[in-house]
């Protein structure tokens, strides 16, 4: 097992780097889209600071629709869209678009639940002291929710790592692709096991890091 790992080190290393880039790009872009959507899901709901029933209802439904499509189907279904944006539907580039479309609504929901945890009384206190709605979003809600936001992003990252494995199907590369090609198609059990072990270590690491950050923020 160890021998096989050393022998195939380059193979693993390339896959790790590919996975890293897919996750990093998709996570950053999906957060840039998902976090504001999460904020909107909270502040436009009834009795909140930017109450707008129509907008809230539409956003809610759209996110639910996107969230109900399995990733593997979504990936294939949006190939034309992917091509129009990055010019290709395969490889890392081709994987990032469906990964973002898949993860952004997920992050929106995670951010929504993180922001809903912020005590309504604190928001009321800031309204009473004459804060603008923008100040309430940025200085109260996002600030108070930081520990939960960090845990939410941890969950999203781990989900994303899982999704990149499926992106192997469209030849995106990465650890999932490695496991499928070598482990499943060629029945090289040692490579499959090696990939799984690496994934386990990465997921553990991400979760521990997320917990650590949340704890630091919540230490208070």
């Amino acid at each position: 097992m160890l021998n096989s790992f050393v022998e195939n080190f380059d193979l693993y290393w390339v896959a790790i780097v590919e996975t890293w880039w897919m996750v990093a790009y998709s996570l950053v872009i999906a957060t840039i889209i998902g976090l504001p959507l999460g904020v909107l899901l909270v502040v436009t709901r009834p009795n909140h600071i930017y109450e707008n029933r129509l907008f809230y209802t539409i956003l809610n439904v759209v996110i639910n629709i996107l969230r109900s499509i399995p990733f593997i189907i979504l990936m294939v279904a949006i190939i034309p869209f992917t091509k129009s944006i990055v010019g290709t539907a395969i490889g890392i580039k081709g994987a990032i678009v469906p990964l973002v479309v898949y993860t952004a609504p997920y992050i929106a929901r995670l951010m929504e639940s993180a922001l809903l945890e912020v005590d309504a009384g604190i928001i009321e206190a800031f309204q009473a002291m004459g804060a603008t709605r923008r100040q309430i979003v940025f200085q109260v809600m996002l600030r108070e929710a930081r520990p939960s936001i960090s845990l939410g992003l941890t969950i999203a990252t781990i989900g994303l790592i899982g999704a990149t494995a499926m992106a192997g199907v469209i030849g995106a590369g990465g650890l999932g692709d490695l496991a499928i090609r070598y482990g499943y198609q060629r029945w090289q059990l040692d490579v499959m096991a090696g990939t799984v072990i690496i994934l386990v270590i990465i997921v553990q690491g991400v979760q521990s890091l997320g917990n650590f950050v949340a704890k630091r923020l919540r230490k208070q």
Partner: protein
Amino acid sequence: MISIKSLYKTYDQGGRKVEAVKDVHIEIAKGEIFGVIGFSGAGKSSLIRCVNLLEIPTSGSVKINGIEMTELTDPELRQARRKIGMIFQHFNLLTSSTVFDNVAAPLRLVGTSKEQIKKRVDELLGLVGLADKGGFYPSQLSGGQKQRVAIARALANEPEILLCDEATSALDPQTTDSILELLLDINKRFQITIMLITHEMHVIKKICDRVAVMENGRVVEQGSVLDIFSNPQTQTTKNFIKNVFDIQLPENLQRKFRQQQPGGEIIRVSFVGEATSEPVFAELTTRFPLRPNILFGNITQIKETTFGSLILQLTGDSATIQQGLQFLKEQGLRVEVLEDVE
């Protein structure tokens, strides 16, 4: 300072109308501590939120310093709110910020300079007795300390009015007293007008000048705390007073005393302030051939005034009793003959 007229607040709860505040009129003078007392659901929380428009009144007028609050634009309202501090039952501090940053928050909202913030926050923390706690987080403080932070925060922009929403209801009696003393101190020092809502008569008794009693959205009684205490008109008020200041003599005891000593009168004598320190009853017995038998007594402090009440049985012939009662009235006491409870 605060003038509330014909105020109504109606909520629409799934098509069902709930009238939380009905036809409320309240005038609060500058520098006054005004209390609103009521059981939960009486509408007092909606009422206090209508003052700084956290709740928008359904109809009626809320004027602060002559300015109609319900007609302000959003920026004007924010400006006005900066001069109205508010504290809450559950403190509502930022859990992720230090005590210093919590107190600094309202100053940062208006873009105060760093040096000024430092100076002002240190001053405020000194005022509320937390000078050494600036670097702590709210979770490291006791309930009373958290409320002190909230008070410091509410005072940051030098408000003219402080609204207290059940500010002591989550605190134990001892801490409640220390917070009330702090509020009284702030009221005297800065002439801040305080409007508070509570369900504890103790709070009213300790710091309020005037009080309104609320029930089912209406103010059923209002006036000086002393008047309300000494002469409650409604059953609700009587119920509140009973908890801190019971001046009732159980009926069966009254009956027993009347049977034992027929021909006398059972009277209630109430006294306020200085009258308390005079030996009135010694004087009564030397002047008239009357024998007072003290059945029940109570004395209490209402803000800074002493208020006492005695129930006693006077025996003697009825003409002398009348003279005695007259004498007691002349001494500035309130005298009430209790009717036979049959």
